């Protein structure tokens, strides 16, 4: 622990070549969604910045987020755990149990007070003083507050830590809440999803490792890179929505042809996530591609936005607000006009976005 070095230090220490170091930087640049022109800055950051110490706690959860984390393909789980972060506490992967491990952890928390990243998976049960989730004979909420004191930043992994999650769904028998509902005064990064996409989980940590600061966040504390777009806007089935071509029931002709699932209750129009552009397993699929309507598992209170198969009542489409039946009419009746209007809207969106990006770049990673 004396030698908490940069990524490049670690590569040297472990006898890995400059070539493999640069290859890793290229991979990381891609994963972080940065342009290839950013590569020199990624390399510089990886050469100089220290590795983050990570402590990972579990509250009211199902361990699906942990499982998702180890599914990451780039970087691979072994590379993350052994070469990219210093994962000093994880009750899923750690070899140890018992007193020696406890001492090790206390040491880590003291030594890196104010520097370690606290990753939390799971909601925080607060009903009856938190007795519905006991860890070490004490309520998890107490354990969490202590660990949060020395954290440099807190990552809320998954919808349970970020919003309260499944146990917070009505009637919320254990009065579960999000981590940020009981911890304050620390930078919070919300990485919602049930679970989040594996490469989103690892990329958030990598960003911190490379740039020494948390990634740019939106107003809800979510990394903009991964939660800046609606699945609806990045979905490969979007053209069918615009054309009014919908799946009417499971396994009908539209389902076999991969048409839009909006009428089957798809939450894509309200879901901010990377399933549409990044997809799962490095582009292999995502629920919509596999024929299943999105349930917006990264959104706040999505469990209570049920039944999942009932379609959203109204959605904004170019130039109007209509339900899906009307979209069909508009699209078939005025297909050409629709395309033109849609195109004009895209230009307007792009201009707006460019202005916003200029604003962001002032306080971007290189600033």
């Amino acid at each position, binding site marked *: 622990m004396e030698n*908490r070095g940069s990524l490049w230090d670690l590569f040297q*220490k*472990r*006898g890995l070549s400059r070539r493999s170091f640069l290859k890793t930087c290229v991979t990381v640049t891609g994963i972080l969604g940065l342009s290839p022109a950013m590569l020199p800055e990624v390399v510089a950051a990886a050469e100089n910045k220290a590795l983050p110490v990570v402590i990972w706690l579990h509250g*009211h959860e*199902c*361990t699906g987020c*942990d499982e*998702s984390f*180890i599914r*990451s*393909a780039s970087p691979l789980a072994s590379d993350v755990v*052994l070469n990219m972060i*210093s*994962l*000093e506490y994880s*009750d*899923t*992967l*750690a070899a*140890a*149990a*018992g007193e020696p*491990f*406890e001492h090790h*952890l206390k040491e880590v928390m003291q030594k890196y007070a104010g520097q370690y990243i606290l990753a939390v998976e799971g909601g925080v049960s607060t009903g009856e*003083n938190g007795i*519905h989730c*006991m*860890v*070490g*004979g*004490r*309520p998890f909420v107490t354990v969490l507050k202590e660990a949060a004191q020395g954290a440099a930043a807190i990552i809320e992994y998954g919808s349970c830590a970020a919003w309260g999650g499944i*146990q917070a769904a*009505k*009637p*919320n*028998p*254990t009065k579960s809440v999000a981590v940020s509902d009981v911890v304050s005064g620390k930078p919070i990064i919300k990485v919602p999803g049930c*679970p989040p*996409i594996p490469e989103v989980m690892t990329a958030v940590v990598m960003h911190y490792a490379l740039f020494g600061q948390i990634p740019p966040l939106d107003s809800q504390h979510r990394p903009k890179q991964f939660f800046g777009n609606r699945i609806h806007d990045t979905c490969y089935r979007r053209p069918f929505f615009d054309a009014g071509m919908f799946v009417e*029931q*499971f*396994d009908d002709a539209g389902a*076999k*042809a*991969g048409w839009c699932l909006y009428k089957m209750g798809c939450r894509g129009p309200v879901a901010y996530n990377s399933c549409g552009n990044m997809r*799962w397993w490095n582009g*292999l*699929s*995502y*629920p919509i591609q*596999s*024929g*299943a*309507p999105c*349930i917006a598992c990264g959104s706040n209170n999505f469990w209570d936005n*049920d039944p*999942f198969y009932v379609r959203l009542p109204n959605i904004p489409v170019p130039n109007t607000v209509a339900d899906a039946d009307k979209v069909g009419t508009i699209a078939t009746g005025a297909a050409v006009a629709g395309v033109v209007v849609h195109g004009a809207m895209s230009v307007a969106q792009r201009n707006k976005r460019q202005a916003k990006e200029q604003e962001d770049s002032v306080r971007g990673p290189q600033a």
Partner: protein
Amino acid sequence: MKRIVVDPVTRIEGHLRVEIKVDETTGKVQDALSSGTAWRGIELIVKDRDPRDAWAFVQRICGVCTTVHALASLRAVEDALGIEIPKNANYIRNIMAASQNVHDHLVHFYHLHALDWVSPVEALKADPAATAALQNAVLEKYRLPLTGPMDFDFDAYPKDFPKATTLYFKAVQDKVKKIVESGQLGIFAGQWWDHPDYQLLPPEVHLMAVAHYLNILDRQRDVVVPHVIFGGKNPHPHYTVGGMPCSISMNDMNAPINSERLAAVDTAISMSLNLVNYFYLPDLLAIGEMYVKKGYVDGGGLAKERVLGYGDFPDESYSGISNGDFHQKLLLRSNGVVENFAKGLNEAVFHNLEGKDYADPSIISEGVEHSWYSYPEAGKDIHPWDGVTKPQFTGPKEGDKANWKFLDEEGKYSWLKTPKWRGKTAEVGPLARYIIIYTKVKKGVIQPTWAEKMVVDQIEAVSKVLGLPPEVWMPTMVGRTAVRGLETQLYAYISKYFFDKLVKNIRNGDTSVANTAKWEPSTWPKEAKGVGLHEAPRGALGHWVVIKDGKIANYQAVVPTTWNACPRDSKAGYGAYEASMIDTKVKIADKPIEVLKVIRSFDPCIACATHLYDAEGKQLGVIHTDPYFKG
């Protein structure tokens, strides 16, 4: 006698606490109690919701054995509403269930359990050349060359195969050395690497196993590719009541399933077969033989007396579970109870469990004598259809409600209920399934299917390697771990078998994946009850649902870890965790690695703590795995 706390034990899922009393002179565990320390109330949350959504809610009970609760839920709702799913949907769900089991077992062995047996510190003492030779010897001696039916075998050569070269093992060893020297031990920090149990295996076995730990960590993700293809993601893939949402079309690349998608599934299944046949089984048998030959045949506990299973893998679609059709169609008929297996086949007794038995309160029930719940009538157990989930937290015996010292074994001490078969506790899991199938086949209760025959062949092959009869080596800690590996091989072939059936059925012109005839709630009866059964990685899983007026009126899930980790019952006896700990010897009370090992041999789905008491019940030492615990 000594009393110690380990809280929570790592490398398991969830929150569990265990307390034990140990005689230091003999190492004998006198008493043990197991307590689930978290309650999320998901059964209350699904109440009054749309039964077609239930799979998504209850799937979140567990993200490690992801998908199993979704499957049990779909089966329960379909049983209630009388929905028969199309052939393709049945094959696809079976592929997903089998690949889930393969994944779960692989990760359990290499990443949750292996570090109880092997140590990176011991690996440093190994000779890399001798390790390469050992790898060759292990592959020659311990491979189990059994196969299932393979109609489409496109795997030209084993792409994933253990490297057996000196240079490779030297590279891995150098890496481990540098990690140790750097002081940044990360996940390897703080373990009792000096425990004498780590000396049971030669250093070369440790180095080989550490290399495989890393290999499998990077390959495990690909085992569940079928989930991502058919269900869109993993963990927590998507389903639909009545079948699968993944429509099949060979005319459209936009279709969820077409030739290219099937190729990805085929490649993943071939890779799984390689991982199991060339890594998992040889490693497991090599380590298992060394342990058994050094006399490690304890930790059996309840497995010796009573095991229970529900059966799974419907070969073809079935019309219902409550009506008995499900159990007529199974490829793997592990349904039933076997008592006294440890006394040998002659004395072992088999009891059947099928169809209407699951609706009978005198056969399946749950009690709350030692659980933090209250029932309307004290002392009267309840069938899951009438199940009541009313929390009644009474706190510990010593300490206060928010700062426990010791739990109260005389009173209530767990958030888990106590499930019972005919009023008795039973062990569930891979070991239970194998004991039941072996007993049924050997006693002539069933004519074996290819899968059941493979179970018997595997057991006999391992008995030969170990030089011990099944009733001696199976109901033990090592046996529990070994059978899980055998089952992984079987499940990899079951994945392949159902993939072949799926392809042939599509070739015959059937592309249907969903039965939507009863999709609309207007087609449902006013009231309906259903049961959904599944053999999950950790054992027999049952969901019981009551639907009224199109909504869920009651929902109860009796999960495998509830059967195994449940608190004791004055009439039913100890649960499987408690019984197995009582059947385990501890060498060093302050480093109770044997107790952690036997608990992990169940692949727990909850986190835990272990107390060891002295004769007067005085606390002598406390070991915490929770770094934030301040005693």
